[in-house]
């Protein structure tokens, strides 16, 4: 009787319906940590070239030659958004190149915390480039939290200062095309990256280079080249291969079940798996 009463209480500690998610998370963590350990052994890991990141130097160099500023926009979301974090990471690289070339970098932000994080990142980049005196915190400033007010202010700034290189890395919504089209109108080299799938077509249409989805998150590892960071890319590929294999197996199984009909031998098995994964029977 006591045991019966204790059983539900013990179960309540863990959300059993989230077990498949926990297993998937464990697989991702194991793959990433395992790949980092593999990378630390010093074995070579080949990374596909990302044209968008390779073009950063070309774009900043062009801005230097033309005597025009470099514009960097880290999206319109706050630092609690992983895309903003990834954007600020890329800002570090762009700022370092700008410092080396002695180009002026302009970073209007849509959130106060992003402004402070961007200032820290750019200052560290200038320090790493050996030009701490060239760092000007006033070039990284807060505009507004409002989406379209931010677009209006940034577009106006683009029309007046005519940046030669525009970088858009972060979380963007409807403002993506307005920004990219204004950058195009002033003749800037434009490089964008986001994980917002709805905005990718706009960036692809209006920018010279676009980092699509996972490429955007791979930028940090790609730019640093550190074994630990590159190892995470290998981990991502391992998980992707697993997802690919599971998807193929599931599609094959689903096809067999469809051919067998509802009374087939595998129908019950497929229903049970779908129910366990949280899907319909």
């Amino acid at each position, binding site marked *: 009787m006591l045991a019966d009463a204790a059983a539900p209480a013990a179960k309540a*500690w*863990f*959300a059993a319906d*989230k077990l498949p*998610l*926990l297993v998937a998370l464990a697989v*991702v963590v194991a793959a*990433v940590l395992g790949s980092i350990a593999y990378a630390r052994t010093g074995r070579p890991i080949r990374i596909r070239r990302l044209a968008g990141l390779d073009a950063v130097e070309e774009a900043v160099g062009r801005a230097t030659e033309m005597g025009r500023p470099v514009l960097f926009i880290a999206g319109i979301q*706050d*630092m609690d958004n*992983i895309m903003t*974090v990834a954007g*600020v*990471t890329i800002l*570090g*690289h762009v700022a*370092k*190149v700008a410092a080396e070339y002695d180009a002026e970098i302009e970073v209007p932000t849509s*959130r*106060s*915390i992003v*402004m*402070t*994080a961007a200032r*820290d*990142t*750019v200052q*560290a980049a200038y320090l*790493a480039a050996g030009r701490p005196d060239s760092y000007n915190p*006033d070039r990284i*400033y*807060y505009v*507004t939290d*409002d989406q*379209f*007010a931010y*677009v*209006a*202010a940034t577009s*106006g700034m683009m029309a007046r200062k005519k940046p030669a290189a525009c970088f858009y890395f972060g979380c963007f919504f409807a403002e993506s*095309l*307005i920004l990219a*089209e204004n950058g*195009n109108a002033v003749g800037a080299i434009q490089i964008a990256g986001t*994980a917002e*799938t709805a905005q990718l077509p*706009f960036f692809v249409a209006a920018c010279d280079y676009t980092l699509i*989805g*996972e490429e955007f*998150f*791979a930028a*940090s*590892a790609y*730019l*640093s080249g*550190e074994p630990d*960071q590159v190892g*995470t890319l290998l981990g*991502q590929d391992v998980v*992707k291969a697993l997802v690919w294999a599971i998807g193929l197996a599931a599609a094959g199984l689903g096809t067999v079940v469809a051919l067998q009909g509802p009374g087939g031998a595998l129908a019950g098995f497929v229903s049970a798996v779908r129910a366990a994964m949280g899907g319909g029977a």
Partner: protein
Amino acid sequence: MSRSVAVLVASVAALAMVLSKFIVPMESAETTVAEWFNAAAAIAFVLGGASLLKMNLLAISARGPGWGYSAVTLLAFLATLGVGLLKVGVAPSVAYPGHRMSGSTDAEGGALWWLYEYAMSPITGTLFAMLAFYVASAAFRAFRAKNAAAMFLLGTAFIVLLGRTYAGVVVTSWIPADMPWVSWLRLENLSAVIMSVFTTAGTRAMIIGIAIGVAATGIKIMIGLDRSYLGAGSGGGNG
């Protein structure tokens, strides 16, 4: 030292948010951490406001191109802040009718409500409406048939756009709808197939890659491997 503390805070907060999904007594941890962030963001807004004032005052004093916009921005900022803080035109709340400041800042009829309703909202709507023109100019460049891939894109876009209009339905209405071996050629059906099969497949592939990328980035931040967003060590080519 300060960066180590920042990494520790980020790791603990991230771990709490992950555990809140699986450990039932920790369910509220996600909300708590989000509230901490909102509190930090509210404090940081003071820095943002100071930056806004400084940059626009500098622009006005320098009399550079567009300094008039800075003046308008400052006026609008200070006026909005003033009417919001002083609750200009706000009626007292029902619970405390004797206290003028007891009403809600954005209550209907107040000056802040008026500014939002009759200035902010129409301006935002105008900017959003301008998006249509930006789409047209971007499409004009993207759909130039300069090579085989661009021609393929143009053809696909033509089918999808036309298939979603009445004109598209009319153009291929002569194809019998009750014959499955030819009815798929009707533009509305072709458009639906492109959107539900090819577009969905491509988008899902991207979303899976993004989800794995987000998870890997989250792990890097949790274990302190990527500290470039703090202006430190690894990543971002900062050294």
